[in-house]
């Protein structure tokens, strides 16, 4: 699903540091222009908070620029970039498990599985509250493969490239994620 095409706003082209070659700059500029919106939306659904998503997206593209030399096949740009974004988002969620505001004795600590906590409240302004609540209650790897499949429209093979799994393992994981999501959406009255 080409998310960027559904946006009225187009990200501005970047002016990169002088130390890169023209070809490197052009390649990264192309990647950023094409993927900044999809990556932002992907990590937004992963971490559930616009500010955190912006940080993760920012880190994703900085890492991508640093690792641009490892992208040897332009046709795999998408899975390569989503893999970076996925790892960055997972790192962010992992950190989130370990850091909470100090001295906040009244609120419970965020659940170890990354949701729902305050994320739900934030996402509610961007998507249906019930869907967001269900999505954020999923385990992170379930959430991840479900987003890659149903939002990003990736095949099992493509998801496997992003998640470093075999397509067979993705199929199993995806089935479990769908079953869990079905249960959560049913609890929200959205599916039977």
């Amino acid at each position, binding site marked *: 699903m080409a998310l960027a095409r559904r946006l009225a706003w187009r990200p501005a082209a970047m002016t990169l540091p002088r130390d890169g070659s023209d070809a490197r700059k052009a390649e990264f500029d192309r990647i950023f222009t094409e993927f900044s919106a999809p990556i932002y939306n992907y990590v*937004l659904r992963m971490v559930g908070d616009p500010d955190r998503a912006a940080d993760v997206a920012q880190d994703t593209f900085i890492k991508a620029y640093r690792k641009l030399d490892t992208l040897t096949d332009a046709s795999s740009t998408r899975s390569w970039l989503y893999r970076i974004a996925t790892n960055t988002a997972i790192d962010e969620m992992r950190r989130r498990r*370990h850091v909470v505001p100090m*001295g906040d004795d009244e609120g419970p600590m965020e659940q170890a599985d990354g949701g729902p906590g305050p994320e739900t409240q934030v996402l509610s302004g961007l998507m249906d509250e019930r869907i967001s609540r269900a999505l954020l209650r999923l385990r992170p790897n379930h959430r991840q493969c479900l987003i890659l499949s*149903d939002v990003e429209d990736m*095949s099992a093979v493509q998801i496997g490239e992003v998640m470093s799994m075999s397509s067979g393992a993705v199929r199993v994981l995806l089935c479990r994620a769908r079953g869990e999501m079905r249960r959560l959406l049913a609890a929200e009255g959205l599916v*039977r």
Partner: protein
Amino acid sequence: MTRGNHVDELISASLTGDLTDAERVELDAHLVRCETCRNTLAAFTSERRILSGLPVAEPPRDLSARVRTGIETGRLVPWWRRPGALIAIGASAATVAAAILAVVVFNNLDLRPVGSQSGSPNPSPSVSPSSSAVVASVAPSVEPAGPTFLGLGELGYLSLTGAPFEPSRLTFINDATGASIDAGTVTGPPIAAALSPNGEWLAYITQKGESAANEVWALHLTDGEVVPLGCSEAASFTDRLAWSPDGTYLAFTLIAIDLGAGSDCPANDGDPGTADAWVYDVGLGERLRLTRSGNAYSAAFQPGIEGATLLVSYAAESPWTVAVPLAADPSDLARIEGVFLPLFSPDGSRAIFWNGTMTLNGGSWHFSLGGMPQLSGDFRSAGPASPWIGTPLFSDLVPVGGEAFASGNFTWGRDNDHLAFWDGAWTGAPQSADGTYPSQTDVYVGNMSGGLLSSASALALVRPSDAYLVAVAFAADAGAVAVTLGLPSAGVGDPPSSSLQVAPLDGGSPRAVGGGAEAPPWNGPAVYGY
């Protein structure tokens, strides 16, 4: 796998075209005769339709600028800048008095000394271009971008001038060249200063009028920009200004204080009386409160490792310290028991730290039993003993009945050998025949190779008997120390005055800095270019 699970997997895979022809035939045949599976297909299809129809959010309009900045500076978003990312270690404000009820959220409690961990200090023996032979083991990770205000070995000092009952003007002066930078007006004298390793910034603390509060500032030595960083209760252990080795971050401690409207204090949402570690990111121009425990103190950045790692100390009956990486995953925070406010030698091979039992008294933390500065072991040693098992800095002091130092200050020479201790508040009986040792008004200077500190380490200074110690800094070659001595006020409203002296360690006479007939009333603290 059960039959039901297998069919569910086929149903799931069918939605994304991931079935083989044989699987498609198998699934179609099964769906004809299984209502449950048809319901599953309908539910999965609905769920997929719901997710694919999620609204699309626009990325932040500054995303490209942020990425560009990150690429140019080579920095990712530090975890502590992220929403909610305040480290959750230590006691909450409500439980500080009850001491060590820690809200431990890291799941891998690592009690190894910081120095023995992966990425621990491994000082480079190389000589940086800006270092002389005497600081050969110092290897700054970032070189100054251009000429700095203070050259190698040059002394700079803050100077305060003003008439009674008027705001005072603060100036930073290069003693070698006479050049000066205006730091604006302040309401009290400077009491601490620290030059960033790249020579671009001077951090300093000034007293805030008669309010019993201090203010923390950063002065950009290139363009004269003055950045107010916060107000703090004036209390022990809050005058540590810690720069990261690359000069990117300044860490400091603020004890929240409510000075009312018009105080000009930058925002601090901490409850009054709570101590927390703060960080100023000079590249982004942002200051952030790093902790919310109410008992946390910024100690020092760890030299010699990649990335900025700040040691934060927690005051409690049994204090402890954690090493917090500012730009990496902070999940594996090492808790170093019994160590408070460590200060690393420039090469990171050793540290001086406090050890003892602390008490919250009069709203601020002090050592109540056995408080003693300690010298760590060598972090480069591969031996089994923890480097954090220290040696008392004073070889001839014997705490009797637990009475020892309540507080004090220490610093390192850049030769990684010399060290100094001053303003030590000794709570026990004097331990010299004349009753003057240890003295809060003496500076004790020694070195590791010479057996640390003793009564013979007291520095000879020229001073009135009622002068008090403000700050001490080693010269770049560790051959002298610059001592700022506060002088008693001459009367209500009189500007504060001080004496800044450079005392050679070879026994020579101290030299007054900023003296002369028109001497400003307050000179110091001093720093040296390195």
